[in-house]
């Protein structure tokens, strides 16, 4: 047996250990490669500098960075499993140089195989991914091409990654101490310590993070709460602070709080000494302590995965809803008073819509713009015009006295606390000639989000009396029930009318914004889904490595216990609880983290995304359960061999 054969035998015959490492590498490479195939597609390359290329490119970089750390962490876990083997080899006189060579050879064999397999699988699926992408981007079809650039890039980068990792391995195996290597992964079961202070800090940090995440929704409950919420909102770097406190809180949760809770359970003697409770509680103590870092990483990775996927899925599913709220009307044309083509344009629009067979309802409004002495802009609309729009939008009609005014929000997400124009008690028009009392705020935007800031509805009579007119707009809004099909018509109208002319007219449609958003969000969904999947896979393989590492230790323990009379069913129960804790505590914590992260997202959305959150969490729960059942059954059947029957 030569040294090379020795290294190869090691890889060939150690599949159980290497498989997890190999498969996670293959998956990472496949994802990276698939993105590269998209990125280097001639059509995408042709649109150089566009948003799509940027999003794909940035994702690619993110995947690359993640891949590096992922492979590094996997290698680290993988080498830990084998510390005893290395100890034996060192005592037989293997030099550090030979150890490095062994690890290097192994890594290269696994790495090259993973690259080949990853790219092959990637090629098989590339047609599918290209189809998905082209449907997302509505580019027609992105035809299949031979992605030699993507192959070169993937091969190059991953060879670099595996080389880099191989270069780092001597740091990972502290080869100097053979005695500890020989003892393998087992550590002396030192006394477990925890500090009440740090446990409290964990609660405090998690609480702070969660509170910051929901604070925008806490308005109008209590004046003190309002102040705190506003303070948080104005805090510089609030997001970083929030993230940091949740991350550190999570770490302390595992390193301190969980041990503290178990300690409490232990003190409840009737519970602790009940049946097998003692076994799993005392064992869990050590397990959690030894696995703090792993549990922490798995939680954070799962959180990233859940949040990314819930986020993109939520954004995607509310696009239509948001478009409807953003643009209550399918098309709005607004003309300045000096525009001579107004009638001509309206006629064009009407005719174009009719010739394409669209039914529509048209609402015309006059809007006066005033600028007060303190250069405040006010827009005024009369009650009858408002009521026409209100009935079209399903709002209540209003009846105002001569001295009354109704305020209309300019943005979909309006908030009287922050938008000062909506908290005015009195309105003065014509530089104080006309004074109005505000009777309320309309519930919705009536043109489209962003048009006509500081809009006021007044009695028709009052409207006609206004003398100070800076500008008088005519705004036509079209309600088109079949708006989803207006892409073609809109394009033709754009050919005729252009985008508008400053000081003359401008117009906008719901479909255009919707289309761009929809495409963006689909792209996000596509990208976020991959990133989420990668992170989730990362989390899962850490768990696998960990369990694998512990297996020998467990074996010894259960052999001993079974001699003392532990039955198979009891072993099964104890092992199931222990594995379940490793699987589901990070899951639950990550779900809670995600819930609060989604709350932050919620503040920029108009529609609730709670259902999407539940869907994603549910799907991951199912995946987790499947994975758990599989791993548990293998684990138990492995231990069963060693139990005294």
């Amino acid at each position, binding site marked *: *047996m030569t040294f090379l054969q*020795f290294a190869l035998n090691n890889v060939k015959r150690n599949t159980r250990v290497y498989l997890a490492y190999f498969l996670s590498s293959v998956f990472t490479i496949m994802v990276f490669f698939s993105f590269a195939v998209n990125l280097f597609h001639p059509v995408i390359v042709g649109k150089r500098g566009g948003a799509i290329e940027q999003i794909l490119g940035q994702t690619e970089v993110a995947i690359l960075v993640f891949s590096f750390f992922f492979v590094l962490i996997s290698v680290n876990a993988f080498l830990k499993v084998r510390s005893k083997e290395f100890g034996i080899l*060192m005592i*037989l*006189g293997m030099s550090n140089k030979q150890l490095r060579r062994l690890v290097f050879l192994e890594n290269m064999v696994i790495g090259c195989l993973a690259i080949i397999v990853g790219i092959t699988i990637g090629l098989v699926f590339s047609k599918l991914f290209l189809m998905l992408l082209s449907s997302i981007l509505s580019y027609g079809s992105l035809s299949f091409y031979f992605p030699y650039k993507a192959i070169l890039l993937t091969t190059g980068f991953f060879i670099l990654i595996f080389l880099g990792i191989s270069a780092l391995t001597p740091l990972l195996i502290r080869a100097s101490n053979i*005695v500890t290597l020989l003892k393998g992964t087992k550590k002396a079961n030192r006394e477990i310590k925890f500090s009440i202070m740090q446990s409290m800090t964990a609660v405090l940090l998690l609480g702070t993070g969660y509170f910051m995440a929901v604070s925008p929704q806490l308005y109008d409950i209590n004046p003190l709460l309002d102040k705190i919420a506003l303070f948080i909102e104005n805090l510089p770097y609030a997001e970083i602070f929030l993230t940091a406190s949740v991350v550190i809180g999570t770490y302390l949760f595992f390193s301190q709080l969980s041990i503290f809770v178990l300690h409490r359970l232990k003190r409840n003697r009737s519970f602790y000494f009940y049946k097998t409770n003692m076994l799993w509680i005392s064992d869990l103590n050590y397990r959690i302590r030894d696995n703090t870092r792993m549990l922490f990483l798995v939680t954070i990775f799962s959180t990233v995965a859940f949040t990314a996927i819930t986020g993109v899925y939520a954004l995607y599913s509310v696009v239509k809803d948001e478009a409807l709220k953003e643009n209550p009307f399918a098309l709005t044309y607004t003309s300045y008073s000096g525009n001579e083509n107004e009638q001509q344009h309206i006629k064009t629009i009407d005719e174009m819509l009719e010739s394409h067979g669209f039914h529509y309802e048209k609402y015309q409004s006059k809007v006066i713009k005033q600028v007060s002495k303190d250069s405040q802009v006010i827009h005024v609309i009369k009650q009858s015009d408002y009521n026409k729009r209100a009935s079209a939008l399903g709002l209540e009609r209003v009846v105002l006295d001569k001295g009354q005014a109704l305020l209309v929000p300019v943005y979909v997400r309006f908030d009287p606390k922050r938008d000062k124009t909506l908290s005015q008690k009195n309105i003065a028009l014509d530089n104080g000639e006309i004074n109005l009392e505000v009777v309320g705020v309309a519930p919705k935007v009536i043109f489209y989000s962003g048009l006509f800031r500081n809009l006021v509805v007044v009695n028709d009579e009052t409207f006609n009396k206004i003398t100070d007119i800076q500008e008088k707009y005519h705004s036509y809004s079209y309600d088109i029930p079949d708006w989803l099909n207006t892409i073609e018509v809109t394009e033709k109208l754009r050919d005729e009318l252009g985008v508008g002319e400053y000081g003359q007219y401008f117009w906008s449609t719901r479909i255009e914004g919707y289309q761009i958003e929809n495409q963006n969000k689909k792209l996000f969904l596509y990208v976020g889904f991959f990133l989420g999947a990668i992170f989730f896979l990362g989390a899962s393989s850490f768990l696998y490595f960990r369990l694998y590492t512990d297996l020998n230790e467990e074996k010894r323990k259960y052999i001993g216990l079974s001699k003392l009379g532990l039955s198979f069913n009891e072993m099964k129960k104890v092992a199931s609880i222990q594995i379940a804790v490793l699987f589901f505590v990070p899951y639950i914590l990550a779900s809670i983290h995600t819930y609060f992260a989604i709350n932050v997202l919620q503040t920029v959305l108009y529609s609730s995304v709670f259902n999407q959150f539940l869907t994603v969490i549910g799907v991951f729960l199912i995946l987790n359960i499947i994975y758990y059942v599989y791993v548990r059954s293998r684990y138990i059947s492995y231990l069963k061999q060693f139990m005294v029957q």
Partner: protein
Amino acid sequence: MEILKLNHITKVYGDKVPHSALKDINLGIEQGEFVGVMGPSGSGKTTLLNVISTIDPPTSGEVLINGENPYQLDRAKLALFRRRKLGFVFQDFNLIDTLTIGENIVLPLTLDGQKVSFMDKKLKEVAARLNIEDILTKRTYEVSGGQAQRTAIARAIIHSPLLLLADEPTGNLDSKAAKDVMELFESINRDTGVTTVMVTHDPLSASYCHRVIFIKDGRFFNEIHRGNSRQKFYQKIIDVLSLLGGEADDLSSIRFK
């Protein structure tokens, strides 16, 4: 000629609560000697063997193997030193699970970059001596404890080391397998003249040695020589162990076979 010489060896573990595992140990072992090390649990036997094995440097004192202090070598040279001059046998065998029995045995030659033909020749020799020719292609989980330990011994001697070191080689074996293994140690020592140091708890195993040294609480306690009769030697070992106290008491009931 002294193949192994220990001068004033001490070993202290721990920084905050220092604990002396070895206290001023002096020992000389002649070429070809077969020496047993005994003592109660925790007395420092494994520590002593690790110090000799060049894997755990002493806190003070000097280890000379064949006149050379291995702890003064740099890491690469030290690895080479272990590879060529030392052979190890452990209580739990420490075989590599990914390799076959035969591959495990030739591992020291593989690490040394020897020719494959030379490996095959050596493998044949040692396998015949240890009577494990039939299991060379088996994997480690397919063989019995006694076979695994014989494999470990084969691995320890295939490169003809200067010094063969064993830590409780019979600790995990039943009495039949233990007897086989001890007879092997004896015959290897006799035929090849390899100097052997073996830590053991078992007086019966120890009775195969030429000389047994006893340590207690990290200090040299006593040493006895075998003379002609193994039976008498066994009785002497039992006597010293009972002087040592601790677990020795319950051993005296074991009958000599």
